[in-house]
């Protein structure tokens, strides 16, 4: 089980190591708090607004028909617990990389992966309304936002 072995470390070395580790953790923690890291665990649209490229989407949403019934996450993340956090993780990572490197198209275009999530969420909330016009088999689905492009936050 536990093998004991001796490492010759002087007290000075150990102190230095602990200090460096402390600086790392401290700086990391400060950056996390400074970047409002905890906000990303909420459903608050202001969290998405941390990146100012989302300003147009946020402004559009505040004037949209969905402003009082759905937040960003309601449309853009799956409605299941694991699904929601998985997608939050994937998009969080992708968005962080994109915004940090500046490597993203302008105007921002939704990708297939996220478009499908949004489409699925339209149907989940409006299931009864679209029960007679919606089919979700292969080649069967019609995109809601193809026509209703302004319901969330404008195109």
């Amino acid at each position, binding site marked *: 089980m536990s093998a004991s072995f001796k490492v010759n470390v002087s007290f000075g070395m150990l102190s230095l190591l602990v200090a460096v580790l402390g600086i790392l953790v401290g700086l990391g923690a400060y950056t996390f708090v400074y970047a409002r890291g905890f906000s990303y665990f909420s459903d608050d649209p202001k969290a998405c607004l941390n990146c100012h490229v989302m300003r147009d989407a946020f402004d559009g949403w505040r004037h949209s028909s969905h402003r009082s019934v759905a937040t960003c996450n309601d449309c853009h993340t799956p409605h299941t617990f694991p699904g929601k956090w998985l997608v939050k993780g994937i998009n969080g990572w992708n968005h962080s990389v994109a915004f940090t490197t500046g490597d993203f198209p302008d105007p921002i275009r939704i990708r297939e992966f996220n478009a499908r999530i949004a489409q699925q969420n339209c149907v989940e909330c409006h299931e009864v*309304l679209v*029960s007679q016009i919606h089919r979700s088999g292969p*080649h*069967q*689905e019609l995109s809601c936002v193809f026509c209703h492009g302004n319901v969330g936050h404008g195109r």
Partner: protein
Amino acid sequence: MRQMFSSRQLFIYVAIFVVAVALTAVAAALLVNISQRRLEAEQYPLKVVEIPKGELDPAVWGKNFPHQYDRFIKTKEDYGQTPYGGSTPYNKLERYPVLKRLWAGNPFSVDYNEERGHYYAQIDQRETKRVQVVKQPGACLNCHAAEAPQLIAELGWETLNKTPYDELKARAHLGTSCADCHDPETMELVITRPAFRNAMEQRGIDLSKASRQEMRTYVCAQCHVEYYFLGENKILTFPWSHGLTINDIEQHYDDYGFKDWTHQETGAPMIKIQHPEFELWSTGIHARSGVACADCHMPFMRVGGVKISDHWVRSPLVNLSQACQTCHRWPEEELRTRVAIIQDTTARLLRRSEEALVAAIDAIVAARAAGATDEELSEALNLHRAAQMRWDFILSENSTGFHSPQEAARVLAESIDLARQAELKAQQVIAGSERDLLTTR
């Protein structure tokens, strides 16, 4: 109190309890989900009656689909005229007298009215003078009778096409019906007419791979297309071997050496174009954007708590809010004006084209009067054919250019140019024969 379990036992009991809770929750969730799905299946479609196999009467289908049927039966109503179309069967030959001359010798010069709604697809066909002045083949029934698929199954494809219309018309009672586009079991969209299937096969398009959005166009394209009757058996055929533009269609007819009729005045081998809506639409911006026929002519509408496809198929101009404003967020008046700009422009070009065609006909007639032979006039006659089929492609297409504004203008520009070339050629023939007269003296 004495201790009942060791701590190890306690742990095991707690673990079993937790697992049991989780399993019960999963089972309950599954049960609720299954019952929900069952309920959904019961709710839609609400099967009041079992639709018998081969049932064509929309009223019977309507028992299960009351909302759709209520809208479909509105195609009986006359909602009036739009600037260039609508559902009032006004006489187009009276409104545009030049048509009689341009179609001289063709049944369309005898009777040509604005179409009424889908409900009348069989009635209006039965009553038009075009089936009286000329013995038409049963091929007409492909689109003008809901019974067509059953007749094809019974008589065979060739027999339906070649049997005279008059012999078969007693078998046709219904115009457009639910079964033309829908599978009665699943209500999925289906292609029921062989001519479209054959034409798409020839173009190398696999209909079994069509998306639902494509099908929302294809079911209409079974009938709203240019067609001709191929060979002695009068097989209904769409001229798409080279593509869907009028230039492609002309190529197809030239390959085959086809003419619909001989022009009474000029003797040119003419092509009569009929309602090529699918072809013209396919070159337009709406087609490029993935908008289907049904999106504008059968837009989704709310009935109580659900949405349905509006089966009152009609001009979007009388339904601007549903048909256009979902995507184009402009006031109705603005949208109406935009359509008017396109259609008025197209109409002006059509009239210009008609003037040029009349000039060509006059010149050819004058050349014949001066003694010109068919051989001398062959170029002028071919130009008359080419010019007029282009004009007819836009005139007979039921959107007055709206389905593809730039293509409509391009085609009419070619028509005007070719008509003037025909006129010039005929004049040169006259000048030439006059020169010949001078030199032989």
